[in-house]
């Protein structure tokens, strides 16, 4: 039966049902958990207040702590983004505009920290920086301390967002403007300042926003290295494990509010206005000097730029991986320094502590929860993309879909716990189902984003019109034209969501109960000082990430 022969009323009813079902699942699975924590804090305000500001035993100590944690988190996030911008912008430029041997590899390395579960990468970095410079050298090189390593990790985990968004924008942008600028006599650096920078500023900002959000919510890697330094997401986890739900909920809400207050206005302004011509140096005097400097630097310094960027990548990503791979082979049968067999990888894996079977179990839980969460998220995401593109409220939907992406995951986990868990509606106990419910929340926007990008890059409305003029009804059109065209976007989204889910630590910690996934397992290993086991687990994660990376590359490159 074709659409034509259906009575109009039924068609309308079907489409209305589809729309409301999609909206309903978005609300239940995505929006409700994202915002529940704040409403919880408000409805339970008296208890929260007593716990945070007027504890009968410790007074307002919790409030003072909260300020301290938030300050550290914000300082970390801002510094990480600043460093990420300094190195990320030239890196994105090189990747988008230059051709050289090993470019594909450099791209993989850049994507690597997005893919690897962060607790594994945190441990890798910790081992690399402390084993190269040694524990004693903390006194020789005073810079290498815990906050410094934290910063390095946050930079490594967040700069890919800046690189990826800017690179995508540059690749989309025609090189024509740069060529035109060159023919008008401007040096490459001047072209960069006057043409490329203003035209890509929205992309740079949104990359920085993503990086900032990721740093603010980062839990896995930070937990591994934190020792006495506590960031806000870690504090949430610690308080929950001590059943201090009031303080945890208050801090979590603050995190959500801070993230939204910083990020959403920037996004909104950029979406609305874009950035038109701007100039830092208006007076001709400075401008002239600057032009000379840029001309000089353009001729003499491109090598330096390439070297600095390369060095950065090697230091923050490549070196840690190599050091860990080296350590794991060295301590395979016995500890390289003490010679103790009990400190070897083999002993800890298969000995009394039997970390190997724990790792196998965790792998199963991780893959199952990531797989199911991604599947459900994709089922919600596909109709959501069409809602965003076809309806007037689409823009609004798109904007609030950004929220789950910027909500720190430990706050999200707490929100889920309080909403669906025993303390709330009591739908599920901590365990794999609660993990899945948590992962769906951020997986939906993660799948939606690349699909939207594909949608916008492939003229789908045009082909849909062509299909309709050839006599296909709207259902056939979506099935035989739109979805195949979106395939790449869907696959990219699925892989991104799967890796993100696999690596998620902060929220999982709070909702997992006894069903441990891999990243918390690594944290546990480190906390119980089973270093060789953690070395092996990290190596395992590195290998896993490379496999996922290859998959991702195969799917996204044509």
């Amino acid at each position, binding site marked *: 039966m074709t659409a034509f022969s259906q009575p109009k009323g039924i068609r309308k009813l079907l489409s209305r049902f589809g729309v409301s079902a999609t909206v309903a699942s978005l609300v239940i699975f995505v929006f409700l958990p994202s915002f529940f924590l704040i409403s919880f804090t408000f409805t339970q305000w008296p208890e929260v207040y007593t716990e945070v500001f007027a504890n009968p035993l410790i007074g307002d100590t919790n409030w003072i702590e909260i300020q301290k944690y938030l300050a550290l988190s914000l300082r970390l996030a801002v510094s990480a983004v600043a460093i990420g911008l300094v190195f990320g912008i030239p890196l994105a430029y090189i990747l988008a505009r230059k051709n050289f041997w090993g470019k594909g590899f450099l791209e993989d390395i850049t994507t690597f920290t997005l893919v690897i579960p962060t607790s594994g990468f945190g441990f890798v970095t910790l081992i690399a920086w402390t084993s190269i410079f040694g524990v004693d050298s903390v006194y020789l090189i005073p810079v290498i301390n815990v906050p410094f390593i934290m910063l390095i990790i946050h930079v490594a985990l967040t700069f890919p967002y800046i690189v990826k968004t800017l690179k995508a924008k540059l690749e989309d942008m*025609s090189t*024509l*403007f740069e*060529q*035109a*600028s*060159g*023919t*008008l*006599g*401007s*040096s*490459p650096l*001047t072209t960069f300042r*006057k*043409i490329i920078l*203003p*035209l890509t500023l929205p992309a740079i900002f949104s990359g920085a926003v993503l990086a900032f959000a990721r740093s603010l919510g980062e839990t896995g890697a930070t937990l591994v290295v934190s020792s006495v330094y506590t960031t806000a997401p870690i504090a949430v986890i610690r308080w929950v494990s001590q059943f201090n739900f009031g303080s945890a909920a208050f801090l979590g809400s603050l995190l959500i509010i801070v993230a939204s207050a910083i990020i959403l206005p920037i996004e909104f302004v950029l979406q609305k206005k874009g*950035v*038109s*011509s701007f100039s830092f140096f208006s007076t*001709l005097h400075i*401008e*002239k000097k600057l*032009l*000379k400097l840029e001309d000089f630097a353009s001729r003499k310094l491109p090598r330096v730029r390439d070297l600095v960027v390369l060095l950065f990548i090697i230091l923050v990503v490549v070196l840690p991986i190599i050091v860990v791979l080296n350590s794991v082979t060295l301590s395979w049968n016995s500890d390289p320094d003490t010679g103790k067999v009990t400190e070897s990888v083999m002993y800890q894996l298969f000995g009394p502590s039997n970390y190997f079977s724990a790792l196998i179990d965790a792998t199963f839980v991780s893959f199952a929860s990531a797989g199911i969460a991604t599947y459900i998220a994709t089922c919600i995401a596909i109709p959501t993309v069409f809602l965003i593109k076809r309806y007037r409220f689409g823009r609004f939907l798109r904007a609030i879909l950004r929220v789950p992406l910027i909500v720190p995951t430990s706050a999200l986990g707490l929100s889920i716990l309080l909403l669906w868990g025993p303390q709330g509606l009591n739908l599920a106990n901590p365990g794999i189902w609660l993990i899945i419910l948590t992962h769906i929340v951020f997986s939906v926007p993660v799948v939606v984003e690349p699909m939207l990008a594909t949608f916008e890059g492939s003229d789908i409305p045009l082909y849909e019109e062509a299909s309709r003029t050839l006599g296909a009804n709207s259902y056939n059109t979506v099935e035989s034209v739109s979805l195949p065209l979106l395939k790449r976007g869907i696959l990219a989204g699925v892989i991104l969501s799967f890796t993100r889910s696999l690596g998620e630590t902060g929220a999982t910690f709070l909702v997992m109960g006894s069903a441990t996934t891999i990243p918390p397992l690594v944290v546990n290993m480190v906390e119980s000082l089973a270093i060789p086991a953690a070395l092996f687990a990290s190596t395992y994660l590195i290998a896993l990430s490379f496999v996922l990376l290859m998959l991702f590359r195969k799917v996204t490159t044509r």
Partner: protein
Amino acid sequence: MPEVKLTNVVKTFDKGRIIAVDHVELHVRDKEYLTLLGPSGCGKTTTLRMIAGLELPDEGEIYIGDNLVSDLPPEYRDIGYVFQEYALFPHMDVWNNVTYGPRVKGWEEEKRDRIGREMLELVRLFERTDAFPSELSGGMRQRVALARALSSGSKLLLLDEPLGALDARIRTDLRYEIRKLVKDLQLTAIHVTHDQAEAMAISDRIAVMRKGKILQVGTPQELYLNPQHIFVANFVGESNFIEGYVADRTDHKLTVELRGGISVKSLNQDHKKGDKVVVAVRPEVLAIQKGKKSGVNSIIGDIEGFRFEGTNVRYEIRLENGDLAVVVRPALMAEWLSVGEKVTVAFPVEKSFVFSYPEKGLRTELALE
């Protein structure tokens, strides 16, 4: 001052698999308007981009004036370049676009403003200085692009299909405007186009390119009246091509026998008796008369097709030997004939060209791609 010289220039793409420009020699004289004309993919744009420094040649040398510029990036070549897609900076208004060159060259404010004003007046857009490129029509955008290229003060203007993206009527108007501007400012201009009518109307000289090679350089008249290559005869103006072989030759004249035993006479162009040749005759050279007539180079045929094209009428005539010929006559000067009529077509001996039959076949040699 700005002459441009290319010696033995080669450019390949895709690791040498595609030869875009194949040993090109070209000398553009000072204050000359030269057009690189050819079908798409013939290497004309690549040649222009190498002159600008947007591509670097694999081999050969490029001189602007007395300077060897082969390896110099565009910003040091002192050129003006007009892109087909305008390439106006979308985040700057007309004024900032036009004064971009002076600004990045660090010129004094006063000089910058004076040149900006002059150039905008030249292209008659002074009242739109605050507009952004997205608010302008195609023709206006291209005039802004022209003003921007000129305001860098260069005496060498490079134009890459500058009229290609415009509507037909605006295209013809703007081509005369550009030529006048170039001549008034005494510039050297190199213009790339695939439109032979545009090339004829705008250029002092035309270089016809095909498959990376320059086939012939000459004034529009030379190319039209005396094409040296069978491709040029077809691309610059149209031609009818009739195959045959040389039956007889004297010092000045050739007798060519066509299919069906018809023989025609033409001027000798160093062909030997027995050579396989192609006789080219322009449609507008062919005279057409009702009925069977006899005379030198007269061939009988039937009218198979007729089109009224505005200025001209166009007949397709099936000759008695089975070949097809196209005849174009001015619409107002001729009595129109109708399909099915028997006619005689004729052409003067000195207005036909004889080319050796191409080794790769006539169709391949005339192919545009």
